[in-house]
């Protein structure tokens, strides 16, 4: 379509603002005249001239339409019209300048309006941006919708999804009937690898992945090459791909291909650098190395791989599920000993990645949207009440001969100035909020690298707030234009009962109070839930405990003897440091996610094969229970004498004792690992300790047994746990020095206060609680501003009436009560509307709450009480002002 045709189309749309009789008699002629003008403009000055013409026409048509509708006068100031000078461009500029001046004369009002606009736009844009990046933006991989996570399931764990054994993965991959183009695998969790750099040993986040993973994702390296299928064999040379940020920060972005890195004491050649922000499968990875699995040694009963598959084009998720189930059934039949009790489960990758964050994100977006709605109502409220006080000014100017169109146009300019300023403030706020929130967001927030400020969301929020501000700002001018100027003058002079005229204002205040109640209840529920969460007793005493993790590499610690010797020395020497009360070590420190579990058979009560109970195994060393403060309830603690040469003994937690030997004394009871038919030695329970949280405060305590490290030597990496006599944080330096003295090349892979680990474990609920609570407080403030504004207006307008009443003998207390009663009616209406809305909205929180019901009456009542008290206080100020009126002055005004 030519430029002229486009312009004609737009112009046709513009002319709909002209009065109907003009359009009806001249519609076609107008179109023809514009077409002539547009063709002319194009030959004279091309597209730019057409654009200019269109802009001039837009203003001209708007002005003509306004003038024709308003009748009398014009948009242009009288002198300009009569002089025929300058045109409307100059008038627009003048009105904008006037608008700025008008706001500068009322800086308080302008500031409130700006803040309201800014908050509405800023919060909504920020939350939508984050939600968009996390939940909706396509993943940065080729055809990401075809990526599927494949898990095994275990009947013995209630059908829970677990990782996949290597031989099963290899069989799935070579099975042509599964409906998958290819599959790739990676080790179940990021490893902390010790890399010796020029600055010394450093712990870096490393993923062990199958060589074909990058092909499967459809991502290539930024420098050099990514890993390939050929890197995967145990006989191929060791190679590593590094992250863009590691390349930039540790190698200065210089040539790194061919450099050799010592990773966990093995030499790896750097073959490539991944692009910035690529970090699959976990966030903030530094290194990718191939799995290099020897298929001969791989064990079908050791499930440790996560498997990612790419569906063949045209194969649906459901069909792939059916085919994989069939494939698994064949593997169970072929290897019953290892695979019985196993199943298969598929998840869409994107779903699996974001499902944990979804509900919380949507709740936050909802809360921010409620706040935007509230900001719109508040702004409309502000504009209307200011308009009401300006009706007299409008009426006077109208009486003095200002055209109605002129008044409307000027008010429009005034509000547009405010809207643009507020919009810019909101955009700034949004940008700032997004970067702040991304920085503050808990580590568990997925896809943080995909969050970028979203223009569509920004434009929507801008449009919504600006429209409400501009539209409602115009109301007073239209009121004058409707011809009640004379009435306005009379009322302005006297101020009689305000009742019905402010119905619009009242509706807006009620809406604001109701919306505020929704956010207050939601914020209250999350706060209540969070309070419940932090009051959960973890079962151990984290205060004053410092922890650090080390993993002696197999190259220098080739056997159990050397590992055992290292940890024995570490715990012993740590215990002798000044300021240390006791030292111990554990493989599975609480709140670190470390966990290993296996099937057991209790002596005297065997269970059918594949249905054995699964119990966690925690190797510990030293006086672990005293050090972390887990009380021993029965039997004896582990001792140094419980070593490789003595009988196998464990301590179980109370949950295990109750589950395995209900109503009996667990001490002295025996069980063995594996199924009933497996020939493994009996293990004796020598003690029972209190339950301790292992995964998180909101989680159930797992079945767990504690082993002395010398009897569970597969634990090659351990957390050193140290209870301080004084300040635990001050032990960081001496403990670091101790590790360096024992082994200068050993990196500390993780270190920190045990208390901080608990805090970190509740970072996600804390983050969302904080956000929703912030929204709730802002909502409360906005609704209070709204309530105060309307009550103040009411009192100002009824000054005369109140003066008369007081002159006739009404007492001040009665006046005060009267005004408060008016306010109370508004508040009550807000509660009536807000309560059901709050109850309904709180249902969205159900999966986020811990120990609190969404309909919790106490929380809802407290939220309502807070709103009632705060809103009454907002009414009290104008009410007091009314009761202190001097009747003489009030009547004279």
């Amino acid at each position: 379509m030519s430029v002229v045709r486009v312009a004609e189309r737009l112009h046709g749309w513009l002319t709909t603002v002209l009065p109907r009789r003009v359009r009806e008699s001249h519609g076609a002629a107008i179109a023809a005249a514009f077409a002539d003008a547009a063709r002319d403009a194009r030959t004279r000055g091309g597209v730019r001239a057409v654009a200019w013409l269109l802009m001039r026409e837009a203003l001209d048509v708007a002005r003509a339409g306004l003038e024709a509708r308003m009748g009398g006068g014009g948009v242009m100031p009288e002198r300009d019209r009569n002089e025929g000078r300058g045109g409307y461009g100059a008038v627009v500029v003048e009105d904008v300048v006037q608008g700025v001046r008008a706001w500068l004369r009322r800086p308080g009002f302008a500031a409130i309006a700006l803040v309201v606009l800014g908050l509405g736009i800023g919060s909504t844009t920020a939350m939508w941006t984050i939600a968009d990046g996390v939940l909706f933006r396509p993943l940065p991989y080729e055809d990401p919708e075809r990526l599927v996570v494949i898990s095994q399931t275990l009947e013995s764990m209630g059908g829970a999804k677990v990782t996949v054994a290597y031989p099963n993965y290899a069989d799935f991959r070579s099975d042509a009937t599964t409906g998958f183009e290819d599959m790739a695998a990676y080790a179940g969790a990021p490893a902390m690898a010790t890399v010796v750099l020029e600055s010394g040993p450093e712990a870096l986040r490393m993923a062990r992945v199958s060589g074909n993973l990058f092909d499967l994702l459809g991502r290539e390296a930024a420098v050099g090459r990514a890993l390939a299928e050929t890197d995967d064999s145990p006989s191929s040379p060791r190679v590593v791909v590094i992250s863009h940020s590691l390349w930039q920060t540790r190698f200065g972005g210089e040539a790194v291909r061919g450099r050799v890195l010592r990773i966990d004491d093995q030499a790896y050649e750097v073959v490539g650098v991944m692009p910035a922000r690529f970090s699959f499968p976990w966030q903030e990875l530094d290194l990718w190395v191939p799995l290099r699995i020897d298929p001969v040694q791989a064990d079908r009963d050791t499930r440790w791989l996560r498997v990612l598959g790419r569906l063949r084009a045209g194969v649906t998720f459901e069909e792939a599920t059916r085919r994989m189930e069939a494939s698994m059934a064949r593997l169970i039949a072929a290897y019953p000993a290892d695979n019985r009790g196993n199943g298969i489960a598929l998840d869409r990758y994107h779903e699996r990645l974001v499902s944990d964050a979804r509900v919380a994100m949507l709740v936050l977006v909802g809360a921010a949207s409620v706040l935007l709605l509230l900001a719109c109502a508040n702004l409309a409220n502000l504009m209307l009440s200011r308009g009401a006080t300006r009706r007299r000014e409008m009426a006077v100017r109208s009486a003095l001969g200002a055209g109605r169109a002129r008044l409307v146009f000027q008010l429009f300019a005034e509000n547009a100035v405010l809207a643009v300023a507020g919009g810019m403030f909101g955009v700034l706020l949004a940008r700032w909020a997004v970067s702040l929130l991304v920085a503050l967001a808990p580590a568990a927030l997925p896809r943080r690298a995909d969050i970028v400020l979203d223009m569509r969301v920004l434009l929507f929020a801008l449009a919504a707030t600006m429209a409400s501000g501009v539209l409602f700002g115009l109301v007073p001018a239209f009121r004058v234009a409707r011809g009640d100027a004379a009435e306005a003058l009379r009322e302005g002079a006297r101020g009689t009962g305000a009742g019905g005229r402010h119905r619009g204002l009242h509706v807006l205040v009620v809406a604001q109070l109701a919306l505020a109640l929704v956010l207050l209840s939601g914020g209250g529920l999350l706060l209540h839930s969070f309070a419940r969460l932090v009051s959960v007793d973890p079962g151990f005493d984290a205060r004053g405990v410092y922890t650090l993790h080390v993993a002696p590499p197999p190259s220098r610690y080739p056997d159990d003897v050397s590992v055992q010797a290292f940890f024995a020395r570490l715990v012993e020497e740590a215990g002798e440091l000044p300021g240390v009360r006791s030292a111990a070590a554990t493989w599975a420190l609480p709140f670190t996610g470390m966990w290993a579990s296996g099937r057991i058979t209790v002596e005297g009560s065997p269970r059918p094969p594949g249905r054995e109970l699964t119990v966690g195994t925690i190797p510990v060393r030293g006086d672990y229970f005293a050090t972390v403060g887990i009380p021993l309830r029965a039997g004896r603690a582990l001792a140094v004498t419980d070593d490789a040469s003595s009988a196998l003994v464990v301590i179980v937690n109370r949950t295990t004792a109750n589950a395995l030997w209900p109503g009996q004394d667990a001490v002295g009871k025996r069980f063995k690992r594996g199924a009933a038919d497996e020939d493994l030695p009996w293990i004796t329970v020598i003690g029972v300790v209190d339950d301790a949280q292992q995964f998180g405060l909101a989680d159930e305590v797992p079945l767990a047994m504690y082993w002395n490290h010398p009897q569970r030597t597969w634990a090659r990496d351990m957390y050193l746990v140290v209870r301080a006599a004084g300040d635990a944080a001050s032990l960081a330096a001496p403990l670091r020095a101790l590790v360096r003295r024992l082994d200068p090349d050993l990196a500390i892979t993780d270190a920190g206060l045990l208390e901080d680990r608990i805090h970190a474990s509740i970072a996600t609920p804390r983050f969302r609680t904080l956000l929703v609570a912030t929204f709730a407080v802002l909502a409360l403030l906005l609704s209070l501003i709204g309530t105060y504004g309307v009550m103040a207006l009411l009192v100002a307008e009824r000054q005369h009436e109140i003066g008369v009443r007081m002159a006739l003998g009404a007492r001040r207390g009665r006046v005060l009560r009267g005004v408060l009663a008016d306010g109370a009616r508004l508040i009550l209406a807000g509660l009536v509307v807000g309560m059901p809305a709050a109850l309904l909205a709180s249902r969205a929180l159900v999966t986020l709450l811990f120990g609190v019901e969404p309909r919790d009456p106490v929380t809802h009542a407290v939220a309502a009480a807070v709103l009632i008290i705060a809103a009454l206080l907002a009414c009290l100020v104008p009410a007091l002002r009314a009761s202190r009126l001097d009747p003489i002055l009030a009547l004279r005004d």
Partner: protein
Amino acid sequence: VPDNDAFRTLTPISLAILLALLEEERHGYALMKEVEARSEGRLRPGTGTLYAAVQRMMEEGLVAQSAREPGPAEDARRRYYGITAAGRSAAESEVARLARLVEWAEPRLAGDPGASR
């Protein structure tokens, strides 16, 4: 000329439209260009202003739509407008008023103290 019209002051755009139609009937865009040329670029009405004025002036009987049809090479939507007798006399009285104004003002602007009132 009816008596009440003697007091009417045409708006600048109305007068300009009447004057632009004195010599010939014109279609919309030609009218816009003529108004602009005659006012030495001081008046540049867009389609909205022009047609709102044309509509008002048609209702007042100052201009009328012409019977002339657009030619075969022209945009078929074009309409031609002409001045009526009432329009011509309104223009005449407005121009006469302006002439008297000019006659009065010129010597004063030129600083001639002897000019009579």
